[in-house]
């Protein structure tokens, strides 16, 4: 799980207005969004018909990140805020830290799916904030955080919930106009998460404090796994699958995670193989921007088309969260188009300036670092 500077938590504890909570939620949206290019770059590096299990694992995490972003957006809408997805996306820059300076400025790159990238970036992003022996590990890892300085993202979401509770208690009309009709019904587009919320058709909409806490709770559990007394379970109890860190762990270790009573944590990566055939992974140009490709080349045209699809997707999501949730259908079409166009990009070499590299679908226009927007404090 991502670690976040304690100052953000403290700020939320001092929050006196709903605007501060809105700002925190806007940062959370950008944070959830920021992980998606990282994971998609890995996914797009896998050659057609190869490494299917690894692809499915990464894919499932991407879907959950999209779900998290949607739930945060619903919450923001419910308290009178306005998600700005395009602005959030255009504020992202790689390599660089994630929004909110997660994990003490962990440098995150967009790269092909290699064991090194999985360990140093994917697993680093998702590492649970747990000091004991993690499932799959044989020895206790060094403490993940310096107590008092860092909190988990789970704590951040919990602090948002607490701030909302405090504001409600003080009589602020936080949920006076939740605009339910403008929120996305997640049961229509996402895998069900009924095990957590004990509802046959949990729609993810937020209308009051309880439903806000439920939405934020889904994010926390899917990301972190769960701590149970002295132990830790890698299982995301919303749907029975593993939490993100362990899905990536299966690719890194090349084996399924299974229960193993003789292991220190009760779990080890000793199950059926999860092969990652590196010959079937494109050596993508890292941290590609559209400006990396020479104008007029086939790589440029395909990359331009991909970037255009990505921008249209962000624009479509703005439309979705600005009052037209039905347009998620169109956004879904765009996600497929991105996948197809990504394949067209990776048919091309990256160009003479990048020998032996394959063109990567660019999530950035250029290497001019954007001003980081949505900074919450």
């Amino acid at each position, binding site marked *: 799980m991502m670690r976040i500077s304690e100052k953000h938590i403290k700020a939320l504890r001092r929050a006196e207005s709903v605007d501060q909570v809105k700002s925190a939620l806007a940062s959370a949206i950008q944070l959830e969004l920021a992980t998606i290019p990282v994971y998609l770059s890995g996914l797009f590096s896998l050659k057609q018909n190869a490494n299917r299990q690894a692809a499915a694992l990464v894919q499932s995490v991407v879907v959950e990140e999209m779900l998290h972003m949607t739930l945060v957006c619903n919450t923001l809408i419910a308290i009178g805020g306005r998600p700005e997805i395009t602005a959030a996306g255009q504020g992202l820059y790689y390599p660089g830290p994630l929004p909110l300076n997660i994990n003490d400025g962990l440098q995150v790159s967009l790269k092909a799916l290699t064991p090194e990238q999985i360990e140093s970036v994917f697993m680093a992003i998702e590492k649970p904030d747990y000091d004991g022996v993690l499932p799959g590990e044989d020895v206790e890892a060094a403490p993940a955080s310096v107590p008092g300085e860092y909190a988990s993202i789970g704590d951040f979401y919990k602090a948002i919930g607490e701030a909302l509770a405090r504001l409600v208690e003080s009589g602020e009309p936080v949920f006076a106009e939740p605009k339910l009709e403008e929120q996305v019904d997640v049961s229509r587009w996402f895998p069900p998460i009924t095990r957590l919320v004990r509802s046959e058709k949990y729609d993810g909409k937020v209308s009051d404090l309880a439903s806000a806490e439920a939405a934020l709770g889904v994010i926390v559990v899917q990301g972190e796994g769960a701590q149970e007394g002295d132990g830790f379970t890698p299982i995301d109890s919303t749907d029975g699958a593993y939490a993100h860190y362990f899905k990536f762990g299966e690719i890194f270790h090349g084996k399924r995670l299974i229960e193993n009573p003789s292991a220190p944590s009760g779990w080890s990566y000793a199950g059926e193989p999860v092969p990652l055939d590196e010959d079937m992974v494109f050596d993508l140009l890292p941290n590609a921007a559209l400006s990396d490709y020479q104008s007029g080349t086939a790589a440029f045209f395909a990359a331009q088309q991909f970037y255009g699809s990505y921008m249209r997707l962000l624009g479509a999501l703005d439309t979705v969260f600005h009052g037209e949730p039905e347009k998620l259908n169109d956004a879904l079409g765009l996600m497929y*188009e991105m996948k197809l166009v990504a394949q067209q990009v990776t048919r091309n070499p990256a160009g003479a300036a990048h020998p032996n590299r394959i063109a990567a679908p660019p999530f950035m226009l250029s290497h001019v670092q954007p001003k980081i927007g949505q900074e919450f404090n």
Partner: protein
Amino acid sequence: MSYLQPPRLAFSGYFQADVSTVNNDPRHFDNISFEPYFQDLREGQQQNGWWNPVGTGIFRFRDAAVRSVVDPSGNLQIGQGDPVLSMFVGNAFDRASAKIVDVDPDWQLASNLYGLGITLVAPNGQVVLRSEYEANPFRDLWFGRSAAPGDSGASAMFQSVLTQLEWNLDGINSPFLQQLYSFSQSGTLSIRLTTYGFGTKYGENEFCYGKLIGAIGPVVAQEPRSFILGRRFMPTTRNRTGDLASTQNIGCFSAFVDQNRTLQLDLSNALPLADKYLIEQLGPMQIVLLKDPLTAQDDLIGPEAYYALASLDQTDYQQWNLSGIQSVPLHQSIYDVMNELPFALLSGPNQDGKSVVAIRESLLGLEVRSEDIVFRLDPNDSNANHADTTIYAARYGQPMAGQQLNFWVAAPATDTDNTPVSQPPGTTPRALLPVNNVPAFAVQFQPALPVTDAAGRVAVRLQGPEVMDHPREYIDGQLYTISYNFSGSDPALQQNFDKLAVLVFSTVPVVDNPTWNDVQPILQQYANLYPVMSQGLFDFSQKDQADANAFIMRFVLDKGINDPDQMPVTRDMSSAKRAMLIRYFDQVLESQGRPSSLLHMFGKRCPTRGGAALRPQDDRAAPVGTLPGKSRGPNP
């Protein structure tokens, strides 16, 4: 009024048409004889899946921008001035790209655009106009416009209307856009796209891209939306590729005399192309009105035989910046006589003062054209088993009332154009060639012999048969190509492909509870024909993968024909087959007890998630003993 009449906006740039070519060979529709290498790129003389087997069907604009505008009085502005001259012409911003789709493998001569949004965007990103291109196929396709081989030498034009106009002129101080806006109060605008110079060499930078020349103008309800009913220039000779083209390789085109008494000639799809797809220089040429209506193409005539109007502009500047439209103001004396005489382009004069008639209006100025040229009739659905259109008749641009029309179904024919022989021997598809246009009399016209009204128009209904068998065996339904013209002894000369292409779907029995065996052959055919989907997304010809993706399969199958997210394949699927597939996937979804996971919607090929164990100490979990998969731990 149309794009040919001012106010007019001209734009140009490039287009992408990422067509899939596996389905270009009708024999590839035969599941039984389909070979995996039919999905590979062409190699030498081995055709395989032709030149772009992994095409996505995407059609979109690239780097298109406004080049010039003409105000309602006919004044041209180009380069600088009105702010509209700095704007870009793009596509829809919040959905997938449009798709380009043929009605049938046996009629690849009227490709249609579905879900094409067209936008006008200011340099600051402000979307000044959003609109929807009403689906309409290209017309006046010809293959020999340039010397380039195959589709690279081809050129065609799409004409339609823009609907659902959404203007945002806030802060835009553009007199032209104010004028265009005021002319769009009916809710539509006229648009024409001309496309050529298409790259078909895999690996080249411009592969699947070509040149796009566009024009936008007003609409008047009384006029056809898909073509110019006006002064139709028709060659009487053919070129090396069999196109109707003049001796100098000028193709057919239309012109119109507008409200300012200006002759507007749309040459965007007419003048031959030289290297780099630039307009070829044919030597001095002039635009004239012939004094003798019987003067023929290629006649050598002196100045006494015509009224000279203007010299013909053959520059690529004109093509790129004015959308290939040349405007010629007409003197009153010409205006008074033009309704009985043909306009023409002359080549010359030579040193003797004589000129050759390069191309002229069709004999007697006759024109007869149908608003719609592509139809789908579905005997499985009484509401979809007929289609209505309007046919227009004119003489020198003037409506022809009281004209009887007739229809002629083509003789039984095989599609030899799209069924090449491959080398080495043994690599040619083994399926037998389908025969089109049989059985006869499947498509009926109501009325059978329509007569044009006072405005030169007549409404016609095409009625499909009650039952259609499988005359092509492995391709659904049958394709009919039907000619139409005046029924008397003076037919109008028409462009080669100006025919009605009618796809009649096969009748299929209703299956209440379809099984995998019922739907697999349909899905197998599509997986064969569209490897970009079956290999790039998931292989829906395999039950586990199709079922795992039931949610998204149902989602795309249920889309309307104009939705860009509809699978291209479902446009050539009958309502009955589509309904059966939807029923099948509904059953799968019901049996799963929940919508299928998005886990599978983005490239997943593994068995579905689910059946995962929760640990017994988790009080939210069911007892482990009741859950499958415990021994392995959770699935992804």
